[in-house]
């Protein structure tokens, strides 16, 4: 059930009405019930997995705190972490590991008969398993560090993991941000509904008008990339950058808007990353909840542990973190290369930060901004070729074609292409204004209700006029 479907809108309206009709102290119960329903709508069997994760993590956290010795606490902690990672690996990475093992075996197998993978699992990963396990692991680490108290209410903890707006695509919400809000649950407030609806509309605009519009051209080209020219693939790679951003940030905005309507403030996941002037800055603005999760629980511990290596500890930590982060996105070498590309550039930026700073002083600020933004977006678009491709060979073939820029431009449906350019322009202008001229005249936050209403009416009219209502599937759904 994706957020931009009519079925979901009906589900949410009923959910919200009943949520505010229930007494405050029972609302956690309704959050679990709706989360279970949302989960079962996709596949009823898999509800066992998040419920199991919630129970194991809840018990482990309490037992860790009660443990008489540090050694016992560590054992419980490791067992819970291994259980969470084990489930993630089992559902998401079993086929990758066994396929890789069989491929290596076949490589050294001298006989002509190649062995097929006897361990191949024909099962889909439970919905949002990567997000649920990461939230559970983050919670366990915080308890182990002693930064927070273990949650004593199983219902509250289950509600935290099963809160449906964040099941599909996050954000990777921290327990210490969510649970206090759940306990201090408040009555219906006009601001929550109003702000939530606005954020939902903005997300819906990005998803239906921009992302799904661009996906028509992108899918047409990438699904048959071998028949397309270098110039077509270059334009498609740029379109995919905007599609990816509009799709993911749009969906997150919708999630944040839904949560806000229910009285919850979830973590902002995007801060206009397309205006980042370096890859380092980019990852502070893109999928913020995931990158901070990795920074806190992966990058920093590695960098601290290897601090004897000096600057090389940063390179090691960057590479390891981004390879794992890439792998988190999917069980494929393409995602590992995607991560490695970012680890590489982050390391280069780290080593050159002083020389770049000196150079920046010699050039005008506006020129530095333009070149920085263009380079960052270009590099991210390049890495997304690996993100999108099914195999490394496919990605390399696309890159080879782009470098040669041979052939004619694919212009099969001019209206779709023209509309794609127009909607990219509208989204980019709105974000450009917010990024660089936020204090100037604002439409979305204007004091005059008529101006605000006209702005959001414009977005809704654009959705009706140019949104894609068929066949749009959220790209991050698979993670």
């Amino acid at each position: 059930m994706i957020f931009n479907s009519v079925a979901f809108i009906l589900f949410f309206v009923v959910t919200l009405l009943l949520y505010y009709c229930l007494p405050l102290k029972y609302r956690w119960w309704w959050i679990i019930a709706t989360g279970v329903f949302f989960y079962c709508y996709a596949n009823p069997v898999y509800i066992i997995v998040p419920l199991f994760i919630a129970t194991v993590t809840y018990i482990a956290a309490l037992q860790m705190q009660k443990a008489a010795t540090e050694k016992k606490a560590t054992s419980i902690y490791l067992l819970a972490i291994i259980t969470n990672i084990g489930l993630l690996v089992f559902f998401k990475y079993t086929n990758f590991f066994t396929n890789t093992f069989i491929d290596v075996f076949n490589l050294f197998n001298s006989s002509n008969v190649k062995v097929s993978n006897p361990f191949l699992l024909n099962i889909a990963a439970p919905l949002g398993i990567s997000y649920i396990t990461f939230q559970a692991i983050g919670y366990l680490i915080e308890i182990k560090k002693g930064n927070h108290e273990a949650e004593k209410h199983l219902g509250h903890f289950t509600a935290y993991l099963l809160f449906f707006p964040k099941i599909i695509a996050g954000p990777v919400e921290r327990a210490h941000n969510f649970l206090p809000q759940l306990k201090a649950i408040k009555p219906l407030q006009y601001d929550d509904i109003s702000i939530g609806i606005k954020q939902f509309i903005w997300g819906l605009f990005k998803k239906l008008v921009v992302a799904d519009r661009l996906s028509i051209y992108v899918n047409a080209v990438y699904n048959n990339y071998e028949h397309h020219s270098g110039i077509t693939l270059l334009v498609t790679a740029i379109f995919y950058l905007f599609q990816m951003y509009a799709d993911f940030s749009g969906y997150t905005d919708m999630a944040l808007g839904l949560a806000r309507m229910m009285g919850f403030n979830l973590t902002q996941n995007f801060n206009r990353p397309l205006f980042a002037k370096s890859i380092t800055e980019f990852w502070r603005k893109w999928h913020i909840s995931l990158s901070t999760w990795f920074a806190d629980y992966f990058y920093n511990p590695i960098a601290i542990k290897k601090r004897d290596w000096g600057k090389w500890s940063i390179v090691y930590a960057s590479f390891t973190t981004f390879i794992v982060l890439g792998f988190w996105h999917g069980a494929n070498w393409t995602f590992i290369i995607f991560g490695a590309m970012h680890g590489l550039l982050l390391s280069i930026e780290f080593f050159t930060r002083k020389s770049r700073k000196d150079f920046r002083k010699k050039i005008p600020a506006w020129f530095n901004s333009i070149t920085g933004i263009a380079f960052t977006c270009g590099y991210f678009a390049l890495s997304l070729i690996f993100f999108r491709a099914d195999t490394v060979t496919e990605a390399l073939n696309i890159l080879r074609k782009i470098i040669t820029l041979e052939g004619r431009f694919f212009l099969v449906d001019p209206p779709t292409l023209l509309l794609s350019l127009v909607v990219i322009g509208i989204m980019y202008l709105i974000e450009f204004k917010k990024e660089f001229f936020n204090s100037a005249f604002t439409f979305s936050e204007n004091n005059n209700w008529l101006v605000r209403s006209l702005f959001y009416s414009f977005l809704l009219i654009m959705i009706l006029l140019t949104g894609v209502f068929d066949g749009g599937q959220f790209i991050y759904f698979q993670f």
Partner: protein
Amino acid sequence: MCAFLLIVIFFDLVIGKVMAHFYFKQISGWEYFTRYAIEETKADLLIFGASRAQKQHIPAIFEDSTNIDSYNVGKDDVSILYSYALLKSVLKRYTPKVIILDFENKGFVQSAVSYEVLSCLLPFYKTHPELKETIEMRSPFEKYKLLSSIYPYNSLIIKIIAGNTTFYTKGKKEDKGYIPLDGKLNRSPYVVNLSTPNFEIDSVKVEQYQLFINDCKKRNIKLFIVRSPYYFKTIGLDSSISLAKTIAAKNNIDFLDYSTNELFLKSPQLFNDTIHVNTTGATIFSAMLASDIKKRLANK
């Protein structure tokens, strides 16, 4: 909040009216043919089907050969669902004498796209009750979405602007629905296995195909179901084709199969791509089919 909703409703009504006005005033372009086919054509010979109908059958050649006023009502990506809806609209106004239905490989395949492309009928939902049933096949929520005045014109703004100007030169009234293709292939044909991958038959499509035949028979329209040329050799059996042939045979309808015509299989220069002939190919094929139909009409 109420004021905001009123503003949205106001703009929806006003913009919806403007879109409707310009949609129905188009003089050329992608959507012009759809409107003309539903509301205006009085041609006695109509060609139904998807892009292979639209780009392979030249009405002017049929007119020259058969002396019957012809019009091509084919449209990109559509299936029998659209063709039957269109037939219902046509039959509400008049009865053509001859109908050619271009049937594609995997014509009965279960596919969400076949239902999605029915969106081209949305502007007619309120004015053409005979199309309601087909439009509502898109989803159980379609009738609620259509409460909006803008929604029927969703994604059409550029096409409507083009259709009201001379911006898009293809698709004018004098083309009579035919859209020419100019490309040329220069390689030998692939071999395509029609039996793979396996696919589910959409029973709704089969039912609509049967209804298409029934309606033609009821009105004494001479129906010819045609498989036009492809530029690939085939192995295996496409269950859609065998089912379509069986139903046609049961109803005494001619099923004319040109899909593996030797002349076309040996002539890549007659194709724009493997599934569409170019203008030269369309001229030759239309003349061939028109001559065949003329003979069959004379014998009936």
